[in-house]
């Protein structure tokens, strides 16, 4: 039986208590994306300022409310992608979902350990690995992935505007 300390690692509680990058950015030039988890009422509002010349995430701000896992994951995501090239942010999304045992091209239950290594694709998750304990609490996985799905949505929207 996984214990609470598996889920609520100290770094997660730290991000929950002191969320990074809270605030808003003017839209436009920034892109706004909203994510919602109807089960718990978690809400993530994400502002992305992307430099079109360098395809880099220049700035990120987050707003919204929710449980500790969703809010900590959002805060950690914002720290992880700020200043990073867009394609690296996309790699992070894939790597984070793999960490949460979500493998887009596979059916549930088909994954083995080799997938994770492949999908991590050399990406260093750093502090984000603290969220791995969430996998042992299946109903909370959606809380952890909400920020990342919202990021993906924001990047896709931005790309369709730029295209």
């Amino acid at each position, binding site marked *: 039986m996984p214990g609470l300390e598996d889920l609520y690692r100290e770094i997660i*509680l730290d991000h929950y208590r002191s969320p990074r990058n809270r605030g808003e950015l003017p839209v436009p030039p920034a892109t706004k994306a909203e994510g919602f988890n109807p089960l*718990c*009422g978690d*809400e993530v509002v994400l502002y992305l300022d992307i430099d079109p010349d360098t395809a880099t995430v220049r700035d990120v701000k987050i707003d919204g409310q929710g449980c500790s*896992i969703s809010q900590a994951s959002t805060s950690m995501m914002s720290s992880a992608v700020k200043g990073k090239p867009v394609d690296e942010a996309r790699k992070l999304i894939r790597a984070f979902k793999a960490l949460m045992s979500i493998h887009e091209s596979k059916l549930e239950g088909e994954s083995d350990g080799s997938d994770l290594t492949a999908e991590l694709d050399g990406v260093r998750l750093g502090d984000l690995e603290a969220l791995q304990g969430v996998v042992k609490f299946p109903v*909370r996985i959606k809380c952890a992935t909400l920020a990342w799905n919202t990021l993906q949505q924001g990047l896709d929207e931005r790309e369709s505007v730029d295209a």
Partner: protein
Amino acid sequence: MTEVLDVSRVKADFPIFERKVNGKPLVYLDSASSSQKPRSVLDAMEHHHRHHYANVHRGIYTIAEESTAAYEGARAKVAKLLNARATGEIVFTKNITEAMNLVAYSWARKNLGPGDPVVISEMEHHANVVPWHILVEERGVELRWIPITDDFQLDLTDLDRLLDGAKLLSVTAMSNVLGTLNDIRLLSDAAHAAGALVNVDAAQAVPHLPVDVQAWDADFVGFTGHKMLGPTGLGGLWARAELLDAMPPFLGGGEMITDVRFDGFEPNEVPWKFEAGTMPFVEASGLAAAIDYLSALGMDAVRAHEKQLTEYTLRALEERFEDRLHIHGPRDVDQRGGAISFLFDRIHAHDVAQVLDEDGVCVRASHHCAKPLMRVLGVPATTRASLYVYNDESDADALVESLAKAEKFFAI
């Protein structure tokens, strides 16, 4: 405190309390969602399966007749429990959600048209909201909402205006979130005076209170078995016989017909007209046993026990957490049942429930299928502890201790 129920004996009747969760005794505080089952209910269903399992209303053989008698016997027990005028006023459905949809799809589709007002309240469960939203889209009926006051009661200030021209008032007898008990007789009188019929969501009332559909003077009352010690898959609708007679069938298929031709069909009599296909008749035997169990305790005693325990729990929460914990519901136990919703200032409902689970304390953390109410309360979700016949002060104490742990764990 004098005990109105011998809870240790009641608890011993429920096999699930023999197990542990995370090495701790099971503290089950989620009966408003679904109740646990006494041994007699499990035995009744096993007995039905082992001794007279055969489809009802079909076979001309002994066990089929026994099976049918058990099924119709269950209907009679429900009729008696609700004080229906006749057994035929009870229609079995899958659950109360289907019962509400039966009213919407059969009665309302036939009787309501564009602009016809349906009055509901802000404290309704989605089962008493969404069927009406569907009729708004499909028929252009007008949905009106009774607001709630700051002390979690229906705000009846504008009731006459809301009921003006209304065809139906559809309200809950007890809020599954706030615990608020509504005065159904008063609402029925007002609705009937305005020419509207009354549909009652009694999902939370029937398991916990003496319910008398005639004293309520309602027109439709929905209930569900799994919240009242019975199995899943079987609920029902009580309705006045003349309404049921005039209502068209809802689901078409076997059993609900007297004749089927190449050019049409003749519906069966009430209540079978609304019971298409093979019904969960084994579960009906379970429900009958659940009603026997509750009747042996006495619904007055059930209510008195829950009132005492709700008072004890509310007081324990207030004393331990003072104004750091917000209780969303009336304080006076005469005005409420044992569904207790609460929130800490800075801790999300889900995080609280997660910590409680480690101590074997089962509570619900969600919008409780009442999102309009969550919007009114201005919260995304609440944590809810709900009490029943097998709960006692030790369960309330375990809740308080575990909440104290959660508060400490998430301290800013």
